[in-house]
């Protein structure tokens, strides 16, 4: 049996430190398995969030060797086990205990985004018609498992803590899913500019790089939303057209 050592951050909002645990490894093991083994055998009160253990629920977000990852999808075979593996909570969010952080801000942000507002049904039976090619663009965004790793890695949140004026990549993806939904008729573009701080994003694409679902966050969600903001607020030709059409 081989073994590996994990340096796990233990502590709470007041502070803490890394503690080393050595545990047995087995084929195919992921970091979450190691954390569970440590929890069962050495540290019963080691706090970690998890649910599905299959990369579908987005609960077990943390930082492994400094990189934002899902613990359940990070295989030990992809890590260098000759030195200890560090496991610590997401740095962008307030700490609760050990690997668990306070992500409640995200849930508050979502409530501020105008909810889905469909056009009237297309058919007398109250249903709509949509082509597969039209729903696919939005289906990419709806793959999001709300792990908040993109929020964690985004420097606007992680370093500058602009949580009051900036909603973060996850919620640009959410807004894009609504704005590009074939049935939706609500307008969220003014909110993107004034309330959601889309201008803060300077397209470093860190969010796209950490997305475990492979959503092309920057190119497919944020940039098109930025373009909509530009079209609505900064396009001089468009502004003229608006003024004249108002007169007419």
């Amino acid at each position: 049996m081989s073994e590996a050592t994990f340096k796990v951050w233990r502590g709470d909002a007041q502070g803490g430190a890394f503690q080393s645990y050595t545990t047995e490894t087995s084929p195919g093991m992921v970091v979450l398995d190691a954390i569970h083994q440590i929890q069962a055998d050495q540290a019963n009160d080691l706090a970690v969030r998890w649910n599905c253990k299959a990369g579908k629920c987005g609960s077990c977000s943390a930082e492994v060797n400094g990189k934002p990852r899902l613990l359940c999808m990070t295989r030990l075979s992809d890590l260098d086990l000759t030195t200890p593996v560090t496991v610590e909570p997401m740095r962008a969010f307030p700490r609760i205990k050990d690997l668990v952080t306070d992500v409640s801000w995200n849930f508050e942000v979502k409530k501020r985004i105008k909810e889905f507002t469909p056009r009237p049904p297309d058919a007398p039976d109250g249903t709509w018609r949509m082509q597969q090619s039209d729903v696919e663009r939005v289906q990419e965004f709806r793959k999001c498992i709300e792990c908040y790793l993109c929020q964690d890695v985004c420097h606007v949140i992680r370093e500058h803590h602009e949580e009051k004026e900036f909603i973060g990549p996850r919620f640009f993806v959410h807004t894009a899913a609504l704005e590009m939904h074939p049935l939706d008729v609500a307008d969220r573009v003014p909110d993107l500019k004034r309330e959601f701080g889309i201008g803060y994003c300077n397209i470093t694409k860190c969010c796209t790089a950490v997305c475990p679902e492979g959503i092309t966050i920057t190119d497919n969600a944020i940039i098109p939303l930025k373009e909509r903001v530009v079209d609505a607020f900064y396009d001089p030709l468009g502004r003229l057209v608006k003024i004249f059409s108002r007169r007419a």
Partner: protein
Amino acid sequence: MPDYETLTHDVLVIGAGGAGLRAAIAAAAEGVSVALVCKSLLGKAHTVMAEGGVAAALANVDDRDNWRVHFSDTMRGGQYLNNWRMAELHAKEAPDRVRELEAWGALFDRTPDGRILQRNFGGHKYPRLAHVGDRTGLEMIRTLQDHGIHQGIDVHMEYTVLTLLKDGDRVAGALAYDRERGRFKLFHSRAVVLATGGIGRAFKITSNSWEYTGDGQALAYDAGAALQDMEFVQFHPTGMVWPPSVRGILVTEGVRGEGGVLKNAEGRRFMFDDVPENYRAQTATDPDEGWRYTQGDKSARRPPELLTRDHVARAIVREVREGRGSPHGGVFLDIAWIKDRIPHAAEHIKKKLPSMYHQFKTLADIDITKEPMEVGPTTHYVMGGIRVDGDTQMTNVAGLFAAGECAAGLHGANRLGGNSLSDLLVFGKRAGEYAARFARANSDTRVDVAQATRAERRALEPFERKAGEGPYQIQQALQNVMQENVGIVRREAEMLRALAEIDALSARAANVTVTGNREYNPGWHTALDLGNLLTISRAITITAIERKESRGGHFRDDYPNKDPEFGKVNLVIQAGPDGSMVLSRVPIPPMPPELAAVIKEMG
């Protein structure tokens, strides 16, 4: 006497998977105040794991489908132990519940004419499952969540309910603790909806997460409600088997719906070897016919891989036991073979089964477009649960409702794939509505703080004990006992041994100790969940001993055949006056003539 922080609402919903969210939305729509408490963060519940689709007779792909076919498929799959009223309501109302999700923003895959696409699934006569690739559950829970947060529901995340509070014969609320600080909070209400899901953590190999410890079933039982059909546990035929750390993770039935086939070590499609009598007329007789069925040929019958889950799981166990299994004790599930039949097969598989592709690639180094998967049965679902009225979802305790997996009735002895997502929509809505109406029609309840204090004292005992063992070892021991003795193939002697073990484990659990403090302490949470796990494990075991026949998810090696006498009864469990579990056989009421006629018509 401690002064609890108390929140008062008309309706308290416990659990925020699909059923709980749908119930809370329905109750809020009735104009009452609603609290929703859940063990995890919102949107993380097990519904998110559902892959294949939601069953509803929309008839978008095959216009021969209608509620009567869906009703008769559900009854046949459940071996006629189902609550026929629930099966009827479910089949009739599921299409509206699915269309409603679209009005709330869900984006299902489309047919060429722009309607909701439907796929084939085990036990469903026609393509019936509305889906989004293989991540339908995520689409559903996110749609319900994103709609729900705008309905004025008071959501409490990471709260676990310890006990239901009673006011005489009525339910009056619940005592819960929050994970973050370990503080107790009292939820006072006129009605309570339980929507806590399943019991998978009672077994070692399971597709369920830590949350599924039978909380709702045990809370209801402790509050005097009856449980029903607990012997019927669904072992999903296709869980991952290798590597060890992923054992039990679900592989969607959608793989077989898209043309995937099961093979043993000899390369033989063993599912053709044993087709049960009552499905023979509906099942393909050769591989070519089966393939044509999966590709939408209406003249073809479904391949035997799409027989019901109980049957497929047992066939896999048989192959493994008789030495024809795969290297790691499963069988092979092959979707890569469709490259012989269609062009661009690899792209097609990635498009139709994206999360399966990702899951095997990342966790097992298997490219499912090129090589077969190794699969074997995994504990997935419990058909049994809290006994409810078919129309209102109310239990025998006034004001206490249950919906979704924690409730019993719809699925009988075996659940068809796709029927759980439609179950939680149809009966989540009904439970929420009737709970709201009950709350409006009845006077306020009085909370007896002494009940809460007793529960709090019990919950804190593990911190006070000096000697004793940790909770994880007891939980793992219980999982081994249930897996080995009350699993897919059951025998009387083994189950009696399991009962004795459960007694011994209960004694150990009464002496469990935890380390650390009350703040986000998983050891403590595991210790508190043990009681529920032991209650439902005992219920499963004694009903499984009592049912001396094989039917649906319950297979007895010592009674391998169906017994018509057992086909007439549900096994019901309730707490006796002395606290012991009392088991009774309750006759299933006769089906009304119009439903009986539907069954007869559908053959």
